[in-house]
């Protein structure tokens, strides 16, 4: 299969600064992370040259989370460079690093909110980086902070919950709070690590719609780890596939055929997306006769 590469993909020519729309390029150069003897991310290189919504897929352990966490500097990289605007963000330290973290907001699978704080405070935490330590220690936020937090919440349709504690919300609402917090950081990009993996279908849709909307309206990069192929196909402009730490696929969502997916997931012929949660072809599970997933038929009581 010609579109698989088991090593790093060839480097795309480097753009010097912003592109036409004042947009900055982000370049991954042989980014590598090893945990002990295990290489979680292996010489991954690719560029994002315009504000895309990028989906990263791959089976559990492929290195998706690690890659995202390296961008946000939550996990230190072992080797390689990530250049933003020509500057290597992997070498930033102290205040500069925290500044960068503010600039690339992260949304987590488990939301990573502070459950016991109320929603609006959680959102305002996105502004901590700009605040003096003493002021923030005493829980002092300005009225302007409150207003923008409410604005962000409103945009995600959950301003009504602003005074509740985060832990009192449903998963979907919590994830929207997390996105609001990310918006509050006013970041260059949003990194989302399986943002819908703990959500039910209804909430998942709401959250993905919200991310898409942010991408479209604010023209921000959104990089999104996903574990369901169809979500990637539905929402993303570009899909990156990872397997065992390597980047093994990079292309338009349309290019993501069943065969490609099997390759990415390292599954054999018996692997059947439909059986679990994705939707490519009609599922044929083991010895079952017909699941008829694709063929709606009349139901009888």
């Amino acid at each position, binding site marked *: 299969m010609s579109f698989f590469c088991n090593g790093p993909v060839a480097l795309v020519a480097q753009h010097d600064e912003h592109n036409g729309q004042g947009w900055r390029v982000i370049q991954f150069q042989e980014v590598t992370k090893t945990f002990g003897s295990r290489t979680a991310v292996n010489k991954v290189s690719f560029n994002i040259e315009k504000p895309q919504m990028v989906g990263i897929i791959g089976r559990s352990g492929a290195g998706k989370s690690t890659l995202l966490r390296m961008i946000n500097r939550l996990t230190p990289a072992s080797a390689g460079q990530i250049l933003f605007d020509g500057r290597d963000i992997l070498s930033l330290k102290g205040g500069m690093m925290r500044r960068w973290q503010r600039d690339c907001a992260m949304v987590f699978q488990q939301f990573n909110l502070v459950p016991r704080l*109320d929603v*609006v*405070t959680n959102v*305002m935490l996105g502004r901590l980086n700009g605040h003096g330590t003493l002021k923030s220690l*005493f*829980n*002092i*936020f300005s*009225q302007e902070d*409150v*207003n923008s937090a*409410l*604005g962000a919440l*409103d945009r995600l349709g959950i*301003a*009504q*919950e*602003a*005074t509740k504690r985060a832990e009192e919300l449903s998963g979907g609402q919590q994830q929207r709070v997390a996105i609001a917090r990310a918006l509050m950081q006013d970041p260059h990009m949003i990194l989302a690590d399986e943002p819908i993996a703990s959500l039910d279908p209804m909430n998942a849709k709401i959250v993905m719609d919200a991310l898409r909307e942010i991408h479209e309206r604010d023209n921000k990069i959104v990089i999104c780890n996903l574990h369901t192929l169809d979500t990637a196909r539905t929402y993303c402009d570009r899909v990156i596939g990872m397997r065992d730490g390597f980047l093994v696929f990079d292309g338009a969502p349309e290019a993501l055929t069943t065969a490609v997916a099997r390759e990415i997931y390292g599954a054999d012929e018996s692997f059947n997306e439909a059986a679990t949660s994705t939707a490519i072809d009609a599922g044929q599970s083991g010895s079952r006769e017909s699941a008829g997933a694709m063929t709606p038929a009349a139901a009888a009581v």
Partner: protein
Amino acid sequence: MTVDTLETPVTQALVWNQVRRRAWLTVVVPLAIFTYLVYTWFAFGVPELLSRAQPERAVILATDSVAYKVHVTKSFRDNEFEVAIEGERTATYDNAKVPDWVQLSGENGVVDLGDGYRVEIDGRTALFTIPGYGVVEGTATADGVETVLPAGPAPDWIKIDPRKLDVRPTLDRRLQVTKTKIEVHNYFGGWENFWFPFRSPLYGMSFSQLYALALSSDRMDPETSNIWFIVNEFLENPDWQHGKVLTALFETIMMAVLGTLTAAFFGLPLAFLAARNFTPSKLLRFGTRRLFDFLRGIDMLIWSLIFIRAFGLGPLTGALAIAFTDTGSLGKLFSEALENIDNKQVEGVRATGANQIQRYRYGVIPQILPVFVSQVLYYLESNTRSATVIGALGAGGIGLLLVETMKTSRDWENTSYIIILTIIVVILMDQTSGWLRRKLIEGK
């Protein structure tokens, strides 16, 4: 941007108020605490206390606990010299074998305190030569002391009183003269006589000598082997009383272990009676809880004082006091742990058709076992400390020994010795219980 729903709408003003109130609280609470502390600062009279504090006592205490002094005393009652470590009867030098910095000749003596400091005792007069100052002369008379100083104002390390002369030019050299005696103190570092008593044949031997002796077949004492002789001499050391101290330590540990185990033994079943999810009867629960409160609320120490009448003096009283109090504490803790168990596990076992006891055994016990073990071990460690305290005020053991050496201020090095031992034991118990905890809960 108000979103209208049926609930009270969340407005900007509302949220802003809430945020401001929270900020206000975060500022006010620490301020209130600070104010309270300032109030107590004055209520307890700390400033006055500080002005009266005697830091020099701490210095004396600190030096005394790492040093010992040798008293050279001339008593006019019998006109005899006596050279003794800490002035103790059990550690008195034979006047023919005094240390070489003391020279005695009948009525007179010379004490060389080093670095040019010298005390000459001539009948009822002591002459203290102090380099850089001169000679201080003190004579004991029938009703007091006559002092002659070099010219000039007296330095503050000389205390002159018609009844007593006290000269202490350095921390480790001191002369006192009263109408009844002349006393010179010479200080040395270390714990003298720690290993063997002054009069023991083993006194002053090095470890290698002792080792050789222990292996040798020439018996020091024909009755016992050398090893036993050495151990015995060590334990019977009259100044340090290692034997007594170790017995007391053992008593203390025994109190803690017995008390804690007993408390755990009674606390666990009672805890089931106090847990909401195991005992539906409100009355029973209430009764058990109040029993716990009662047992806990009266302190261990008070229990031990109450028990002295019934059970007399000794470790049993202490162990029972600990057992009583901690049945309350552990019972309460266990019942809370029981109320917090994860019902999923019980349900999983229940769904297999297990009966009540089996559900407890596999659904409940594995869950509270870690809490049980870790709390019991934690209390074991903490009770070792408590046992020293109740021992000090009633039940015996190392605590009693400690308080008495401290109260009579006999020798701070003895006190420090006991303190150090106590702390080592507590730390050991702490580490052991931590180790056991890890072993039992995480390991296996």
